[in-house]
């Protein structure tokens, strides 16, 4: 396991991940609302949910340190709350839960893999708390089959966007 102490450069990179994620999270609201009308609940989750899970794989791929996934997602949610309060402070609650779930993705590999696969897994795992919190807050509770489809759609979307953002971060010229 690599040293978990964050240097000033790590903290600055975390800020970069936070602000980029915050901007993407804010844009995701419009994408979600439009796609829900055009593609229904499952389509909307596939198209847009992964955008809200990108903070964790982005930060983790840049920093490659334990807790970076959690902090990236949480910071992105905090920035989203402070720049455009579409979801209010619940964004922070979502960010906290999704960040913890994504962190599990990297923990699964004992913090040894920071590639596209671990990024996709981190993105996919964030789908579980997102659907759970949707059920609690927005009353989005369907039949067991519907719920399973939503979880799968959120996880697939998370995996796709997680892989994309990890690939982008890993191909940086450093």
């Amino acid at each position, binding site marked *: 396991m690599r040293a978990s102490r964050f240097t*000033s*450069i790590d903290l600055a990179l975390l*800020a970069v991940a936070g*602000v980029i994620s915050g901007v993407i999270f804010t844009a995701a609201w419009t994408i979600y609302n439009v796609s829900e009308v055009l593609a*229904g609940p499952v389509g909307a989750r596939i198209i847009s949910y992964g955008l809200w899970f990108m903070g964790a794989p982005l930060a983790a791929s840049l920093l490659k340190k334990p807790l970076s996934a959690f902090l990236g997602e949480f910071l992105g949610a905090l*920035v989203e709350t402070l720049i455009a309060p579409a979801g209010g*402070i619940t964004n922070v609650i979502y960010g906290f839960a999704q960040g913890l779930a994504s962190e599990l993705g990297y923990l699964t590999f004992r913090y040894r893999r920071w590639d596209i696969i671990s990024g996709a897994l981190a993105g996919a795992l964030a789908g579980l708390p997102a659907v759970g919190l949707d059920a609690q*807050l927005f009353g989005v509770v369907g039949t067991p089959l519907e719920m399973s489809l939503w979880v799968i759609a959120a996880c697939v979307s998370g995996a796709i*966007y997680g892989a994309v953002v990890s690939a982008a971060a890993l191909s940086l010229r450093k």
Partner: protein
Amino acid sequence: MRARYRESTLFLYALGASLLAFVANSVKSLILPSLINGILGFASGSKKIPQKLLAALLVLNAWGAFINGLYFHNVGDEIVSIQAVTIRSGAVESFLILTLRFFLIVGSTLLMLGLVNVRDLIRSLERDLRVPSGIAFSIAYAFRLFPLLSKDLSEIRIARKERGFTSVVLSPKHLRSILLPMLNISYERAVWGGISAELRGLRLRKVSGRKPLGLGDVIILSALALQWVISLYS
């Protein structure tokens, strides 16, 4: 005399009010806290956040709540029938609950944002709630980067247009082609920003002592507690 309050108390207030939205699940229990926070929040938030954005938020939320009610809760007595769409009592109740939750969550957040400066809020989170100073630095640095990244993004969009590509993100592939140059520029900036912060003694910086609780804090926290009591017992 002006009642003094910590900026972090308003953060706790917004968090507490948002948690209430998770717990309360009927129109009766949500109506009073939602109206109070909605009216106060939109009045104070409109000073700092563009009114067009607030109007767009309201429209998007109403649309989302309507679609949500129609998809998931369209049961019970028939209220109105428009061509092939029949709206039932369950959909209307769900729409009302979601709209009230929106007012409670967004209203309390706008109230916080309207009354505090983001920089003061970050400082207060570090000083009064003991948020780790590294995290506080990251949040503060993110806000410093925000205008720079907005400028980078608009330049990338211009470059894409000149090359005949769309400036709007339509697929994960498009997203990657926008993300990559932004990350490349930001990475370089963050490395030198981090070195600069280290050289200026970020690690040696001491966090000032907690600000004592003022009358304003007591009023804010009492208002939050009162809303919880009213909501839970109604």
